[in-house]
């Protein structure tokens, strides 16, 4: 019997890179198109790892890209390790969509991953985070410096990748914004010498970062938080994550 299957992309996961820090579980899985058909405009709409609680991305969708036959993208997420034990096998499930307009379809990719022994991250990351809120097409961001008291790392810059037209509508006092209104928005503390009063000290937070866009929908895009070392007066650690920004047109 010959079975004729409607041509469709064949999205499949490859071996995932996993790191267990004891408090967080980092997972990064290549997502490739093993079929002959193009997978246009691939978005991830959900990532689960067994019953583990996800820390990041906080919001979906996350854009992967156009996956032509043989091409690949990446699905990344962070989970809490509560309840996870080294050696345990958990099902990593990535859900998403491809296509555009009225021709959008769903996909699901599964892969079992093994919880590895606890190890330190290969690079030390800045302990900082960003919180986003959306109201009436205005995205507001608050920076949190989660470094321990006495840490020399003070937050000095924030940059966000965007994929839709934006304008900067809010900048905290002592900071300056820079944007091309289409691909990035950056904020930088304008202090030029110690004690850098506009930097965000360990344990402190700073709001007032705002952007506006014609769309009212969100997606997650990458952001980078930079610190400045107040002990050596030099560039400090960085933190990269995903944050809610205006959603691109599809």
């Amino acid at each position: 019997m010959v079975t004729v299957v409607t041509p469709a992309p064949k999205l499949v996961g490859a071996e995932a890179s996993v790191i267990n820090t004891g408090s967080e579980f980092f997972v990064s899985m290549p997502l490739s198109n093993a079929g002959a058909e193009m997978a246009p405009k691939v978005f991830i709409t959900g990532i689960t790892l067994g019953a583990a609680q996800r820390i990041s991305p906080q919001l979906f969708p996350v854009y992967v890209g156009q996956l032509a036959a043989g091409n690949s993208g990446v699905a990344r997420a962070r989970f809490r390790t509560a309840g996870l034990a080294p050696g345990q096998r958990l099902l990593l499930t990535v859900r998403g969509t491809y296509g555009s307009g009225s021709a959008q379809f769903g996909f699901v990719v599964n892969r079992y991953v093994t919880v590895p022994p606890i190890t330190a991250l290969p690079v030390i990351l800045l302990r900082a985070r960003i919180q986003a809120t959306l109201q009436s097409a205005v995205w507001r961001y608050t920076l949190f410096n989660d470094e321990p008291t006495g840490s020399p790392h003070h937050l000095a810059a924030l940059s966000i990748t965007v994929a839709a037209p934006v304008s900067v509508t809010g900048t905290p006092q002592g900071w300056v914004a820079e944007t091309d209104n289409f691909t990035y928005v950056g904020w930088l503390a304008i202090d030029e010498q110690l004690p850098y009063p506009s930097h965000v000290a360990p344990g402190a937070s700073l709001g007032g970062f705002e952007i506006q866009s014609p769309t009212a929908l969100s997606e997650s895009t990458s952001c980078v938080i930079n610190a400045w070392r107040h002990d050596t007066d030099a560039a400090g650690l960085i933190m990269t994550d995903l944050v809610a920004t205006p959603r691109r047109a599809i």
Partner: protein
Amino acid sequence: MSLIFRTCLMRLFLLLATGVSILPAQAATITLDVNSLSVPVAAGNAAMFSGTITNRSGVTLESTDLFLNFSAFDFNALTPTQVLGNSPFSLLDFTFIANVDLFTVDVAAGTLAGTYGLQVFLSDVSGNVSDMTELFLVVTNDVQQIPEPSAAAVVGLSLALLVLSRRRSSGRRVLQQPI
């Protein structure tokens, strides 16, 4: 170039071309055969799919070495979830396991009745992939059908409304008459 040489060259080319064309296509090293390719399911319910997995990968595969991947489905209506691996088994090379639970598909409540397609294939830890299988979920609505009113009932209701309207109208006229 002589005619004989050209003829020989042409024959050699044809022979090579024929040889290439009759080479068998590379068989998938893992195969997936789903028991039912078309399953009826009511909106708001889930369907369970089971099937046969054949291992010709050259190594023993554990149940958690096998992954199901889905595409080409209506994500507003269908939510496929892998259950393969929940029950452990080992699959030696050149063996198969039949009637193993593979996945469920939840059909969202309120999904319109109709036939919904879904494609699934199997992959393993070594990067082997099976052929794609296309499945169909025939979604039915369990919502009770409200019968259309008959033509006689519609005519009767219209007449009743007309009579009521005339009575109200005549009532108003009486009130407007001078005493």
